[in-house]
């Protein structure tokens, strides 16, 4: 019998496989991954330094352990090249094989910054364990690190690096940190807390060039100023990997378009995790993929189950200033109402009728997370 096939062994692929095995010990299961198939927790990449963890210590299980645990065939270092949904066949760089149902859990690509200069090609991004191993090898003990992008991942790395003795410069075209997630009052508190750790802010600016200089780089910003750094890390965003699906003729938008059953425009092909766009929503976080994996495992094993997504606040891992955000859905009407205290900011995004559509909490206000979450409507009910 052709196996139920999952592309990707990130949190989406492995969580789904576990959930499938809880329901069905028999169905033949195959996982295909371009990487080495190590099971690891991606969120730990941005707080491993301060926790004293090496990349090797982040590996929770090898591909071989996972294959045994899941009673699955796991093809590592194998890249999927093409899907034929009608014939239900998958071609990889090693073989071609049939599938019964196929799940795309292929994640997202970091957006590459548009830079000139002979060091532009050496700008790193960290979106998986391999990237992280490389990043840690290149990280000098006391060198300056310049981070492009003061979003969630940029701020988390800034905190982790600065708390571990590195000199960090953060560059972002927005006038504040976490521009898409936090109202200005909350951002100021985060910026101040990171400044105290030595982080230098270059807000309202973009990087134009990265040139090699000595053993590091000289980065030229849009105001003409220059910053020297041993390492340049880009964290300017992620783009769902849609090419495989699009080439197979499946509907794609920002991500691979799926319905509430995580089904693509082909009834035998599904998508989960960072690559998916669920009913229009791209949600590149752990919580939605956990909810999705449970529902999808049921659907794939014969009990069609729609995904329900509760409101899902995101905890930003910046221990210098705790932040929790539940951004209002795109296009939501309303305004921020801000209560600032000495050591925290509580911002409610209220619709015209007073109902809560999102919130942002910093400092001591993060204690309000549970209470406010209960007030929020579900994302997908």
């Amino acid at each position, binding site marked *: 019998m052709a196996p139920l096939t999952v592309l990707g062994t990130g*949190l989406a692929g492995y969580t789904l496989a*576990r959930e499938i095995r*809880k329901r069905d010990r028999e169905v033949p299961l195959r996982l295909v991954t371009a990487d080495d198939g190590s099971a690891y*927790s991606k*969120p*730990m990449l941005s*707080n491993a330094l301060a*926790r004293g963890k090496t990349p090797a210590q982040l590996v*929770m299980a090898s591909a071989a352990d996972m294959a045994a645990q899941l009673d699955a065939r796991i093809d590592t270092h194998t890249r999927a090249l093409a899907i034929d949904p009608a014939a239900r066949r998958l071609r990889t760089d090693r073989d071609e094989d049939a599938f019964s149902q196929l799940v795309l859990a292929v994640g997202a690509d970091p957006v590459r910054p548009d830079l000139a200069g002979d060091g532009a090609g050496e700008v790193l991004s960290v979106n998986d364990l391999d990237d992280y191993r490389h990043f840690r090898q290149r990280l000098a003990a006391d060198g300056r690190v310049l981070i492009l992008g003061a979003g969630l991942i940029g701020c988390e790395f800034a905190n982790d690096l600065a708390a571990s003795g590195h000199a960090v410069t953060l560059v972002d075209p927005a006038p504040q940190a976490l521009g898409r997630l936090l109202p200005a009052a909350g951002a100021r508190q985060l910026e101040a807390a990171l400044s105290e750790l030595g982080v230098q802010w270059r807000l309202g600016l973009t990087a134009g060039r990265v040139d090699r200089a000595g053993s590091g780089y000289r980065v030229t910003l849009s105001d003409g100023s220059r910053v020297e750094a041993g390492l340049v890390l880009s964290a300017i965003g992620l783009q769902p990997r849609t090419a495989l699906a699009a080439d197979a003729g499946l509907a794609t938008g920002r991500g691979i378009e799926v319905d509430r059953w995580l089904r693509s425009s082909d009834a035998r092909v599904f998508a989960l995790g960072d690559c998916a766009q669920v009913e229009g929503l791209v949600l590149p976080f*752990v*919580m*939605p993929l*956990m*909810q999705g994996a*449970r529902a999808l495992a049921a659907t794939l094993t014969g009990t069609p189950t729609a995904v329900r997504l509760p409101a*899902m606040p995101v*905890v930003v*891992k910046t221990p210098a200033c705790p932040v929790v955000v539940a951004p209002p859905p795109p296009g939501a009407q309303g305004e921020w109402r801000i209560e600032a205290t000495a050591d925290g900011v509580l911002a409610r995004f209220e619709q015209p009728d007073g109902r809560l559509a999102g919130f942002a909490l910093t400092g001591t206000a993060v204690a309000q997370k*549970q*209470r406010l979450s209960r007030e929020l409507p579900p994302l997908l009910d």
Partner: protein
Amino acid sequence: MKKWQCVVCGFIYDEEQGLPEEGIAPGTRWEDIPEDWECPECGVSKDDFEMVELEA
């Protein structure tokens, strides 16, 4: 009393504190938390992402 840590996001459940906001009283032992409980920060389920026991 023990502490348990979520292996995906690092969330710590402290038996001594419980999670009163979620209706889990202080002093509730890990074994006594319902099987369908999920990590409040990342949604990992209790049964398959084992929490690691921290030293006291």
